[in-house]
């Protein structure tokens, strides 16, 4: 009987995860070999057809490439920048830190859907404040959401705005945890501010940074989905589609459940290597902290 006690603790969560995550993944796998519009009583066996048409078409590859671009941009916006800002907070005296901590975290309470709508206005190529500002500076205003080159940046920025605060706080937590003795020891040895940052603070916060990095990479694709769906539908001409949106588009835009499922399976495969790697990385990091 005692052997089953741990199971009792894990069971509720595990049951939910199996039922609402793993079972659907398996049924998605099955679905990916069918042609089915989700309602007709009969689904047609398609074999590898869905996969072939995805892999031979350009949409999947474009979406894959864009996913990569989003990831790189988000890493800069959502890891490097918040790290810098969190570091800045630690450089001012504690009693002046509070308003910054409060204000920078605040946007995190707004939903991405609302954020997307707000940015629709901010990005208006004719009357948005960004463009007015640029025109005052004598620069041409790009059409953010219809420009091939700008659209990914524009959508990434919305996601950044929403997630910045959370990552900022997490990174700040990591920075605050760096032992003061280490920094003081380095100061005694005459290290400059930059040297202290690079040789002491950066390595000491690597565990936290790694966590934010992993989460940004994996969740970036999902978070960016909301502004894509709300503002561009993946356009112009797939320039802002990512893999997660492509799944949605096939499933809920074209009602091609089989193809959506195949896309989901391929996406999961792409992530799989990443997932295993990250799971290891996460575990290892935990080990270091023990």
């Amino acid at each position, binding site marked *: 009987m005692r052997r089953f006690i*741990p*199971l009792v603790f*894990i069971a509720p*969560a595990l049951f*939910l*995860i199996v*039922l*609402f*995550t*793993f079972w*659907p*993944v398996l*049924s*998605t796998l099955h*679905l990916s070999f069918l042609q089915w519009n989700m309602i007709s009583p009969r689904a047609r066996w398609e074999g590898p057809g869905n996969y072939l048409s995805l892999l031979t078409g350009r949409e999947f590859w474009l979406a894959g490439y864009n996913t990569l671009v989003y990831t790189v941009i988000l890493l800069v916006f959502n890891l490097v920048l918040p790290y*810098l800002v969190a570091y800045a907070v630690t*450089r001012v005296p504690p009693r*002046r830190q*509070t*308003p910054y*901590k*409060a204000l*920078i*975290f*605040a*946007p995190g*309470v*707004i939903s*991405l*859907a*609302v*954020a997307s*709508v*707000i940015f629709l*206005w*901010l990005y*208006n190529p004719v009357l*948005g*404040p960004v463009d007015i500002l640029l025109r005052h500076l004598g620069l041409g205003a790009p059409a953010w959401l219809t420009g091939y080159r700008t659209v990914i940046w524009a959508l990434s920025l919305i996601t950044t*705005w929403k997630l*910045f605060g959370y990552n900022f*706080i997490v*990174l*700040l*937590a*990591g920075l*605050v945890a760096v032992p003061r003795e280490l920094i003081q020891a380095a100061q005694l040895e005459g290290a400059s501010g930059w040297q202290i940052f690079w040789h002491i603070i950066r390595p000491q916060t690597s565990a936290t940074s790694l966590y934010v990095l992993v989460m940004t990479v*994996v969740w970036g694709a999902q978070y960016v*989905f909301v502004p894509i769906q709300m503002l561009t539908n993946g356009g112009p001409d797939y320039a802002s589609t990512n893999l997660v*949106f492509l*799944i*949605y588009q096939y*499933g809920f835009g074209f009602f091609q459940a089989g193809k959506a499922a195949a896309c*989901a399976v391929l*996406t*999961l495969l792409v992530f799989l290597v990443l*997932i295993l790697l*990250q799971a290891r990385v996460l575990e290892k990091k*935990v080990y270091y*902290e023990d």
Partner: protein
Amino acid sequence: MKVRRWSKEAPWHILLILTAVLSLLPFIWMLATAFKPEPEIFAGGLNPLPAVPTLANFRFVMERVPLFRYFANTLLAAVLITGLKMVTSILAAYGFTRFRFRGREFIFYLCLVSIFVPVQVTMLPNYLLISHLGWLNSFAGLVIPQLADAMGIFLLRQSIRTVPVSLFEAARIDGAGHLAVLRRVLLPAIKPAVVALAILFFINAWNEYYWPLLVLNDKSMYTLPLALQMFTNQEGGTAWGVMMAAASLTALPPLVVYLLTQRYVVDSFINSGLKG
């Protein structure tokens, strides 16, 4: 001395003020638009503030939409999701840290992997399951599938590991059963992490949009993020002022809660070990 100190700090303050302003800009935009009369919304310009503030948009929202009902729905759903997720996560995190059993690592990895499965992959089968169970338009259908989230398990496991093992052993010797250990020793010891995680869960649950969109089509069951959709219509035009008023009202509760408890929340995060 004082001057030197300021000159050293100033660049950081500039960076921080800039970040804070940029963070708040869209926020201000939302609030300002909510207080603008309709034609003024389209006026454009760099000054976002309304020339003649009006409550008309808020009045419209209150008249047309049972906002308090949606507020109650959202609150109930968010509280249920947060509460139940905390319970299952805490139990599981305890199970994964305080016991050794065969397959523990494997099961944990399985949970970990589930974090990375995009919801879009599971959306359709889950919808069919929920509809098969007859849970469409119900709190069960709204809440239960959203409980499948291993993030809490992962983060709580991290912070439980920072609690000295001897504390648990002392409690066992004191004759405390697992639940007593959980409630009276573990939870107080990791309170910051629990609070921070609960806040995170709550904000996410409050703002959840896609799953409610799928399972709720009865207006009386709507949550606030869905209610926002009641003011958009591509063909007829979106009532921006009204929508922003609704969005402001939607964002207000979590924002007020956050600002009131801001010090505590931020400290919770910093003390929580949720840094992963």
